[in-house]
């Protein structure tokens, strides 16, 4: 039996009895174990046996009761369809309103009026042409304004609705009651061109904005689109193709050359090279063989292999990446705070400024017409949208770009802080080095043979989780040694291990451990120094209180380390290495990668304190570690960067996770943050500057000096282009090189 639990949307329910009917129908369906229907969410959660029941059968059972069970969550399709409809609708409205607006302009604009047919100069014709623009094309503004006003809130639609209504209303009065206007000493001249063209241009701006905004979240769509649709699993000796959501943990999956790997897992048989660029950003395919992990959504290149599914659905790496990017895009950058405060007061303030404008023009200039036109211009030109879009659009594009390069950013605040980083601390093992140390030297200093030394050391280290211990055990296994069991085992953090192997009391560890046990190292000091100067970590073995020998272990430096460090130094960032190794070993490794500031002999629990010490120097510190052992230090740093493989722990602990483990990505991440922040600052500068400069111009501040007065039509051009330019500027981030 293959038990599956799945949610399906149900349409057509109104009350609790609908819930009972649909629940009963589902429960009666063959193969259904349990069904719970929720009226509020309009969803049914069904547990069923996938061998005996299909979603299609569930849909048929529900259809018989008069309701509809939707087989797929059609949200994405619905969103796409809604967006398409919105764009089509906007385009039609733009064409109609600009078309009619231009006809009105032709019949009313000085200079053009002489070339226009007589009927277009007729105010009544202009009035009739303006009606569909004002109330059909412009309906969206009223539709948004009225409920907003009921809630005592206002937005950009309120300003446009107010501005165009004033222009249209005045023109309608002039057209319908010219005598009345004449009596007031004003020439009856309508401004239908203003109302119609303003609506047309603002809708045009919205059309471009909607198109551009759709592209800001493209990265997530791309990531989701990477997923394979089906998987070929081996069940009862047969290979069958099943939809991705029916693959269970423990299933054996077969992948052939050129196929997408459907879910995460571990290779059981076969070997191949796998293109993981879509997840890690790393363009060179990696070789995989038995025991290696493979990640869902990556591409198998050459070989055929079977593997055991270990993570499916929401637990898979791709799902986690998508979730992380979505979360980052939903978070708020601290830099947005000022824009938030201003935008919450913005629209009411603009309405108040419109009143001020009208009063000043009417009282001091004495012109009702100029007072009206300036008031309309103020209402139209103000653009709160540009301020609202400045930060989130850049964050969306920036985090998306990061994800496609194997840089996962936890939230907007991390992305913001990263650009201020001036010091980066690297953990040595597993970060600067590959974290796979190997035994290089076994040196006996008394009669105990080297093989026996290694066997005893491996026996005691078998219970330890340290990477150095792993190297010793691996070496012993390679030499097919008989590893004994250990009793009274004790790991002493930052020192080493102790325990009983057979009749021997064993101590294996560093200098500190030997000092603690009062074991003299005088006879081997030269040897130790020689090994350490070569970048090797030396462990001393003492049996029954006497030094018996040295075991040296060395880790290889990552290929990307030197270049990665150089890139950061070129950016003016200080690099620091932190390690538990003694100074000489640390120096040797640091020299290889080009780091000059070294913090050696730091116990694991002191790393956090070291980070804080550097912060106390006034530095903005990033800590780069493997995300598991360094969690407290990562959390203490201003930005914690984990060189992870996308495991839960690494993602949780770090602000930024580099999936590809490539050290050059550290500089890329900082660079991405710098570029994103530059875009945000440019956007905010433009959005604020635009409103701060142009609102006073629309009010007529230039009129007393230069006789310049902004026409509402120009105001609408500026307004329409302001938010489009902000979104487009954010989209430029996609093209920058990081």
């Amino acid at each position: 039996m293959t038990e599956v639990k799945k949610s399906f949307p149900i349409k057509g329910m109104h009350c609790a009895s609908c819930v009972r009917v649909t629940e009963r129908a589902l429960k009666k369906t063959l193969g259904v174990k349990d069904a719970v229907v929720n009226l509020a969410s309009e969803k049914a959660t069904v547990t069923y046996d996938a061998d005996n029941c299909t979603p299609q059968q569930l849909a048929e059972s529900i259809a018989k009761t008069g309701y509809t069970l939707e087989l797929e969550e059609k949200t994405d399709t619905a969103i796409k369809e809604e967006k398409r409809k919105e764009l089509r609708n906007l385009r039609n409205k733009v064409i109609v309103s600009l078309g009619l607006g231009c006809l009105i302009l032709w019949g009313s604009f000085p200079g053009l009026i002489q070339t226009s047919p007589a009927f277009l100069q007729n105010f009544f014709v202009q009035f009739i042409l303006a009606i569909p623009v004002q109330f059909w094309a412009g309906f969206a503004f009223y539709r948004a304004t009225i409920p907003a006003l009921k809630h005592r809130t206002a937005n950009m639609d309120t300003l446009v609705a107010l501005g165009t209504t004033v222009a249209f209303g005045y023109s309608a009065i002039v057209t319908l009651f010219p005598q009345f206007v004449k009596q007031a000493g004003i020439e009856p001249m309508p401004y239908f061109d203003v109302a119609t063209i303003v609506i047309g241009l603002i809708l045009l701006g919205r059309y471009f904005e909607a198109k551009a905004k759709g592209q800001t979240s493209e990265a997530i769509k791309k990531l989701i689109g990477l997923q394979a649709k089906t998987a070929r699993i081996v069940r009862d000796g047969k290979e069958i193709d099943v939809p991705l959501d029916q693959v269970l943990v423990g299933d054996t999956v077969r992948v052939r050359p050129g196929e997408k790997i459907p879910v995460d897992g571990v290779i059981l048989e076969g070997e191949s090279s796998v293109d993981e660029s879509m997840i890690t950003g790393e363009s060179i395919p990696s070789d995989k063989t038995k025991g290696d992990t493979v990640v869902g959504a990556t591409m198998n290149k050459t070989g055929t292999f079977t593997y055991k599914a270990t993570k499916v659905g929401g637990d898979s790496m791709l799902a986690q990446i998508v979730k992380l990017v979505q979360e980052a895009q939903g978070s708020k950058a601290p830099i947005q705070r000022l824009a938030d405060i201003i935008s919450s007061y913005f629209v009411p303030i603009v309405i108040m400024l419109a009143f001020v404008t009208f009063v000043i023009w009417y009282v001091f200039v004495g012109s009702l017409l100029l007072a009206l036109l300036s008031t309309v211009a103020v209402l139209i030109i103000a653009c709160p949208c540009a301020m609202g879009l400045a930060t989130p659009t850049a964050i969306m594009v920036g985090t998306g770009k990061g994800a496609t390069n194997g840089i996962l950013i936890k939230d907007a605040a991390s992305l913001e802080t990263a650009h201020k980083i001036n010091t980066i601390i690297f953990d040595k093992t597993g970060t600067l080095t590959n974290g796979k140390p190997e035994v290089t030297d076994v040196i006996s200093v008394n009669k105990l043979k080297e093989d026996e030394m290694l066997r005893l050391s491996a026996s005691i280290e078998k219970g330890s989780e340290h990477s150095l211990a792993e190297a010793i055990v691996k070496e012993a296994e390679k030499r097919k040694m008989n590893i004994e069991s250990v009793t009274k085992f004790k790991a002493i953090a930052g020192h080493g291990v102790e325990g009983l192997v057979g009749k021997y009391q064993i101590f294996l560890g560093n200098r500190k451990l030997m000092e603690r046990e009062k074991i003299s190292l005088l006879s081997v000091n030269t040897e130790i120094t020689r090994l350490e100067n070569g970048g090797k970590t030396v462990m001393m073995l003492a049996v029954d209180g006497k030094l018996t020998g040295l075991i040296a272990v060395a880790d290889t430096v990552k290929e990307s380390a030197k270049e990665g460090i150089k890139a950061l130094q070129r950016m003016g960032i200080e690099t620091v290495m932190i390690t538990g190794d003694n100074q000489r070993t640390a120096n040797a490794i640091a020299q290889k990668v080009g780091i000059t500031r070294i913090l050696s002999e730091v116990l694991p629990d002191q790393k956090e304190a070291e980070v804080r010490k550097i912060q106390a120097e006034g530095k903005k510190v990033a800590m780069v570690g493997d995300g598991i052992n360094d969690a407290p230090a990562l959390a203490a740093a201003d930005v914690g960067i984990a060189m992870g493989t996308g495991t839960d722990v690494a993602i949780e602990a770090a602000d930024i996770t580099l999936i590809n483990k490539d050290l050059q990505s550290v500089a890329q991440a900082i660079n991405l943050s710098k570029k994103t922040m530059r875009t945000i600052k440019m956007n905010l500068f433009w959005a604020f500057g635009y409103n701060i400069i142009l609102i006073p111009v629309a009010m007529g501040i230039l009129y007393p000096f230069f006789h310049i007065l902004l026409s509402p039509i120009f105001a609408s051009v500026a307004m329409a282009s302001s938010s489009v330019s902000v979104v487009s500027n954010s989209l430029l981030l996609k093209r920058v090189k990081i």
Partner: protein
Amino acid sequence: MTPDKIIVIFLGFVGIGFTYWYFLMKKDNAVEVESSVDIAVDGGYSPNTISIPKGKTTTLIFLRSDPSSCLEEVVLPDFKIRKFLPLNKKVNIEITPKESGTYEIVCGMNMFHGKIIVN
């Protein structure tokens, strides 16, 4: 000064005062919520302020009937949630606040605001 100008000045002050009072002096009454709440998205969020318990999962069920693109996305920045709200389709958002305080609900363009008060 002519009477019409005096009237315009007077009406201008009334307009400014009214705008200030209407938009900037409104008070929100929090709606107490136990496990789930329907939030109508139409010219803002209704209810606009909700009060929910700490440590419990509350489902916010958004239903957008306002076609304005301003409201097409809802953002709960403190919970790192940004969701598209398809027109006339319910969207469930579950939150489990771990700490007391006031959290905000905003639209994608940051023009409409609501509050979640966690006690």
